[in-house]
């Protein structure tokens, strides 16, 4: 027993000691935080880890949310709006054909690594992307480059689109000229994408030494994009640390920033995968803001005094139809029946955030090119039944895919939306075979490949041009929809090659009318996604494009 006693005594002493140290430290830490008077770290939670620190390799919002704070493109959108304004270029112009773009660059801009920003730097970036080889040419790595500029100097895969990019020349220190082969509706909007943000030429040289590899299995991102240190942009914050184990990226104010400096010294992005987790972390005071707020939580949080601004409407949620997956969908009556069976009003009223609108075409009404004269398909189960009968499809059974474990800004609760629509379709006499899939990669792959007869997807615009919406889906044959209709394709493409914005707008309006007459799918709604901040936060201007600049945020 003696042994036991001394052991116990030792254990107690140790415990007391630990306790003392611990409490001592705790109080020290508290005073540290409070004596400063002001918090100097802003913590924002996203739903997923960024994929890389080089935005050029990314195509997802979680990555861009982080990189947008550190990298800037030639053009950008006005704070809180969708209008293109100068970014690293103060002004820009193009020839009439829209093939030669001249940028007058901002002076006195410095990169995070001390390099000076100039026309040569701009061209170094564009040429770097254009000359990508090997795995960099995979559409999973260079999605946005391929969307905006087509392929590369030497395409290695026949599936890669032909390059539209021609050249970039540094006319003088502060003038860069970018030439493309064909005019495109993706320009000048594309110049604002964070994926085409300008990196320091010194960093680019470093990037070029490193390979992205696809070692049989999957893509291994180059090392420079996986840890802070090499990447350098011009933004108000610089990336200083990526702690993957702790799921956080730390950024620090860049004191040589050319514009208005960031108000808070440290900016940290953390990952909390679930909606409840993010909300609870905010309520517990562990974070200062988060994105992808469940509509149900908006009011709760507002009532509790949190700042929950709502973004402008700039997205579209739709039910897609794949005519190759279910031939019954080739009949227009069937598509129309589905459109009339779905009670969009109810979805908007009960599921989508306040301010959501029922959509009647594949474009929100905030976009130039929205048409007021599209054909309407009002909710009417009886009419739907009659249409099915007319098409000889009374016993229609249809597979309906929906994603699990995900929320998107346009689609807050996919499973609930699915269940409501399923009930609607069944009311019209359509049998629904549900198919649940993981969002990535299963669901995205399956819908893209056109193997889901019915599915739900959406789109948040990258920039304010109608083609960024309808061109995404209906510019040509697309496996997702599985139909060929020259009238639709021609109407959509008519606008894309026009140099003048007004001409394009008119063409898009016409295209919307043609699309809704053909009815390839059912546009459901456009909704304003909310973003939540702590009670003591002056939030940044929220952006309809979800392109918030956190340098604008401050503590009250």
């Amino acid at each position: 027993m003696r042994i036991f006693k001394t052991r116990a005594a030792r254990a107690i002493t140790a415990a007391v000691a630990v306790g003392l140290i611990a409490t001592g430290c705790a109080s020290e830490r508290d005073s540290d935080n409070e004596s400063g008077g002001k918090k100097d770290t802003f913590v924002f939670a996203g739903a997923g880890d960024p994929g890389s620190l080089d935005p050029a390799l990314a195509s997802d919002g979680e990555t861009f949310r982080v990189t947008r704070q550190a990298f800037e493109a030639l053009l950008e959108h006005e704070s809180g709006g969708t209008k293109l304004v100068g970014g690293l270029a103060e002004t820009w112009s193009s020839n009439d054909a829209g093939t030669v773009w001249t940028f007058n660059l901002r002076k006195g801009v410095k990169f995070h690594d001390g390099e000076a920003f100039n026309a040569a730097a701009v061209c170094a970036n564009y040429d770097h992307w254009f000359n990508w080889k090997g795995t960099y040419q995979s559409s999973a790595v260079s999605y946005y480059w391929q969307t905006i500029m087509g392929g590369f100097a030497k395409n290695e895969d026949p599936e890669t689109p032909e390059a539209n990019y021609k050249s970039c020349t540094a006319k003088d220190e502060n003038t860069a000229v970018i030439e493309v082969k064909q005019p495109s509706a993706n320009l000048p909007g594309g110049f604002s994408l964070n994926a085409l943000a300008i990196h320091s030429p010194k960093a680019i040289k470093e990037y070029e030494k490193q390979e992205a590899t696809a070692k049989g299995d999957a893509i291994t991102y180059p090392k420079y994009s996986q840890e802070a240190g090499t990447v350098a942009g011009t933004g108000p914050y610089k990336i200083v640390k990526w702690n993957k184990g702790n799921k956080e990226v730390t950024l620090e104010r860049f004191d040589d920033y050319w514009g208005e400096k960031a108000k808070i010294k440290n900016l940290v992005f953390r990952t909390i995968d679930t909606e409840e987790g993010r909300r609870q972390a905010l309520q517990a005071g562990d974070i200062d803001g988060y994105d992808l707020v469940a509509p149900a939580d908006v009011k709760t949080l507002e009532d509790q005094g949190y700042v929950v601004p709502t973004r402008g409407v700039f997205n579209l949620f739709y039910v897609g139809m794949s005519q190759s997956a279910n031939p019954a969908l080739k009949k227009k009556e069937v598509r129309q029946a589905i459109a009339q069976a779905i009670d969009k009003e109810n979805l908007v009223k009960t599921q989508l955030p306040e301010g959501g609108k029922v959509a009647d075409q594949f474009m929100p009404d905030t976009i130039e090119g929205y048409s007021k004269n599209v054909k309407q398909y009002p909710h009417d189960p009886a009419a739907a039944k009659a249409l099915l009968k007319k098409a000889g499809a009374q016993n229609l059974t249809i597979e309906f895919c929906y994603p699990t474990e995900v929320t998107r800004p346009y689609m807050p609760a996919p499973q609930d939306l699915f269940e409501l629509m399923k009930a609607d379709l069944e009311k019209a006499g359509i049998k629904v075979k549900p198919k649940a899939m993981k969002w990535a990669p299963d669901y995205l792959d399956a819908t893209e490949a056109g193997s889901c007869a019915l599915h739900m997807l959406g789109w948040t615009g990258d920039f304010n041009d109608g083609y960024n919406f309808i061109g995404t889906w209906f510019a040509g044959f697309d496996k997702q929809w599985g139909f060929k209709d020259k009238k639709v394709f021609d109407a959509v493409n008519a606008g894309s090659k026009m140099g003048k914005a007004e001409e394009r707008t008119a063409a898009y309006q016409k295209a919307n009318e043609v699309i809704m007459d053909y009815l390839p799918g059912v546009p459901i709604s456009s909704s304003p996604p909310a973003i939540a901040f702590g009670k003591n936060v002056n939030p940044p201007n929220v952006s309809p494009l979800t392109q918030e600049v956190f340098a604008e945020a401050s503590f009250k």
Partner: protein
Amino acid sequence: MLRLVVRRLLQLIPTLLGLSVLLFLWLDRLPGGPASAILGEKATEAEVARINRALGLDQPVYVQYWRFLKRIVELDLGTSTQTGQPVWDEFVLRFPATVELSLLAILIAVAVGVPLGYFAARNRGGWLDVTAVSGSLVGICIPVFFLALILKGIFAVQLGIFPSYGRQDTGINATDVTGFAVLDGILTGEFDASWDAIMHLILPAVALASIPLAVIVRMTRASVLEVQDEDYVRTAEAKGLKRSVVRSRHVLRNAMLPVVTAVGLLTGSLLSGAVLTESVFSFGGIGSFIRTAIDGRDYPVLVGFIMFIAMVYVLINLLVDLAYSLIDPRVRVH
């Protein structure tokens, strides 16, 4: 002793080989095969052929298996399709967090479970016994994720005593030495970082401890009940030894043997639980990584994880066997 170690290690080889065959077949059985798992359903035939060539899938099965085996032996578990980083590196990065969490959970389970089980047995039929037994029965019947959600709701959100997620506060700029947040703080003298890490560990550890705790309470209780009727205990009491001595030397020590084994072997259940608790608390360990791997069908990670656990299990099993043979001389004979 050495012979035992060697023999145990040799016995493991067929087991691990068998597991690798199963894993190999499983990978092969995945919808569409590895190529489509990598490329997705939109892959063209040319692409599939290219990947198959790159992966050596056009070669005979035994050649493929041999390569698969060689890679595993070289700890080359492939590349995560989600993060694009080597699977082994991802594990090494996240393993310390899960180890810390599991250790604390086991610590809680033992520190609470053993005394509880012991006193429950001593007062068989008393209120403590009834509470402990029914408590442990209820404990294993509550879904771990639900318990974690409730704990978080009460202690983090409502009362604000503990942080609601993560491993460390952002304000804490801890130096990373070993990857073990608590240990690092002690090593570098950043005690506040250690404390912060401990606070983050407590709620998930309590949730994770629920099942081991219930198991340990019941095992200790049963074991003590069994041992206290043994002849040597009666002999000791008859010899006139003090009751306290009998209890600690004879009853508790002998009753602990099966409990010690149990503690050593809770790995599997802890890692299962970690997948759930870590994801509720967004705790950046292996568990939440596996959760995202499940969501994203990251097969290299899942296969690697199974292999990894098999190895960890094998090692722990070996250690426990050795420890046991040291404690209990009877085992050495076998």
